[in-house]
């Protein structure tokens, strides 16, 4: 259509050029853009349609999307350079609002990461709580007069303070980790799930290599190397934030029993689809 239009113009211009004997057909097209734009109107109907390419170039240069004058559309008359003050003001406001929205999204992402991190910490705290409880119970059973000493963590309190900020914290893995660490008893339940191989944690539908929990050493097994990473947990390259937190917690844990709990949490989380 553009080419056709140019040819029509050429037919008009050529006789005039021949008449004055000083024009060539090559000079006609450059004269077209010099036509004055319609005053204060971005939607002027009488403009040349060849302005479509100019419009897109103008939009690209200003980084703005022209509200009219799409390439090839009819009726667009140099809209990029001929917006009304009101339209320009609207465009500026639109840019500002878009920028505000992007910032909102950035903050929302930060909040999501924080929530995931808290979730992971809650799971770790729950596992620690359970292990400590088991250790305390075992010690009490073994020696009624024995004092466990100062516990390394106090998950009940930690969970309570975290719960104050998290509220119910039920998103993510329903019934699995979200409630862990909220209260002492919830922490215990979360820890029990994390530690028990036959817990309510969903089992993977395939890949049953870990189904029986072969890598979890039995109770009373010899202490493994503290800094060791179980061979079945991979290298963690595909871990997401939660999995990475769990992995780091497990790797830095000195207590073998707690470490095993954390690794089990990590396996369960990975099997449930997290970290991939």
């Amino acid at each position, binding site marked *: 259509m553009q080419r056709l239009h140019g040819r029509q113009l050429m037919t008009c211009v050529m006789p005039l050029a021949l008449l004055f004997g000083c024009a060539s057909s090559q000079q006609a097209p450059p004269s077209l853009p010099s036509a004055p734009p319609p005053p204060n109107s971005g939607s002027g109907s009488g403009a040349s349609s060849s302005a479509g390419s100019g419009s897109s170039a103008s939009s690209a240069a200003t980084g703005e999307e022209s509200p009219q004058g799409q390439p090839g559309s009819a009726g667009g008359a140099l809209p990029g350079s001929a917006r009304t*003050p009101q339209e*320009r*003001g609207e465009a*500026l*406001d639109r*840019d*500002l609002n878009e*920028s*505000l929205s992007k*910032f*909102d999204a*950035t*903050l929302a992402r*930060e*909040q999501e990461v*924080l929530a995931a*991190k*808290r979730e992971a*910490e809650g799971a770790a705290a729950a596992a620690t*709580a359970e292990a*400590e*409880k088991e250790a*305390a119970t075992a010690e009490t059973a073994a020696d009624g007069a024995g*004092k*466990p*000493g*100062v*516990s390394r*963590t*106090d*998950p*009940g*309190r*930690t969970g*309570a*303070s*975290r719960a104050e*900020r998290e509220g119910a914290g039920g998103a993510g893995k329903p019934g699995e980790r979200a409630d862990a660490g909220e*209260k*002492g008893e919830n*922490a*215990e339940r979360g820890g029990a799930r994390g530690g028990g191989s036959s817990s309510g944690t969903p089992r993977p539908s395939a890949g049953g290599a870990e189904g029986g929990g072969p890598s979890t050493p039995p109770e009373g097994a010899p202490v493994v190397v503290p800094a060791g990473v179980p061979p079945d947990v991979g290298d963690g390259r595909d871990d997401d934030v939660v999995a990475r937190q769990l992995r780091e917690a497990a790797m830095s844990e000195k207590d073998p029993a707690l470490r095993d709990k954390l690794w089990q949490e990590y396996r369960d989380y990975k099997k449930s689809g997290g970290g991939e």
Partner: protein
Amino acid sequence: MRAAHVRVPVGRLVALALALAASPALAADKPVELKVASGEVPEESLLDVGVEVFAAGVEDRDEDELADKGILAEVRRSEARFIPFRLRDTLQGSGHWGAVRLVPVDTVGLDVVVSGRIERSDGKQLRLRVSAHDATGKKWWERTYEGKADRRAYAAQNAAATAGPTLELPRRDPFQDLYNRIANDLLAARQKLKAKDVARVRDVARLRFAASIAPDAFAGYLKTGNDGRVSLVRLPAAEDPMLQRVTSIRDRDGMFVDTLNEFYAGFVDRMAKPYDDWRAYSFEEQMALDKIRRESRLKTILGAIAIIGGAMIDDDGDNDGDRDTASGGIKDVLIAGGAIAVQAGLEQGKEAGVHKAAIRELAESFEAEVAPLLVDVEGQTLRLSGTAEAQFGQWRQMLRDIFVHETGVPTDPNAPLTVPAPVPTRTPKG
């Protein structure tokens, strides 16, 4: 013939010794109850509070010298976030304030700013230099707050630790009374303001933020006096579109600070347990150290008095055999006993070294635990602050473009996009 006599007022010396040896006993502070709002405070009466990250009080100080006192820089820098966060919680819990946030130093556009410096913190005592001022630059107060640890908090902590996870006790900071005092003082200063003063503070805060983000449009609404106080020249129209844009940005600023507070909250959560443990152990060691020092000082002083008293027993040489024998015996006993007491005191003083070493070791252990957490939270806040800073710079430019477009008033492209915020006299750092 005179009897042997002592010419020194032994009674007074002993009293003096006892006074000198008396410990700076850890008498419990009188409990301070937080004044909590009895009902909902009307929105127009609420002032937002920004509690700044405290100065750690270790800047420009020799690390070895600090370490000898059981002070480690990373621990203090962690406390510089932990302590104001606790204060933030306390203020928020009182119900007298609007949003209470922990903010970076020199945050602009807050109704009330509380800043502080940690002067002492060892688990036994906490001493803070705290000041508060409002958006107009008016200083509300600047005071030193000193508090002794509430033993019950440590006792509860130990009980919970002994009983294990099954025992859940209400969490109370050992220095909660100190936070309550600061909160109550802040409230007292707030209550001196009339309604129109509160409204003015809020307007100035809002316009200071506006001027910081769109100086071309809003700098003229405020005037800064020679004393640094900021006053209102006039108010923009409520429907001023530029003000509405700035209000939108201010809302984002609030969200940004809220996100920072989430970072701080996570940090405080993770730090709380090892910090409480450290403070509890450090408290015990400090108490043991004080006891040893007290007893050592008492023995040394009493021994010295005995030696001096013995030396001053006058043997008048009148050849009164029995009495001379008796006084000579007393003299010997006093001198020998005094020497033994002094030596015992000095020996006991050496034991203090054990406790000092323990305190230092505890601090180092805690530092090793908290340092990664500190690095983590500082990284998070720096990253987000950098993002926000860039974003706010972009918004400033956009608002300038809009201002030029709407008013046609040309602006100097080289002019700064922000105006320096008037800052009242600040609490000395370091």
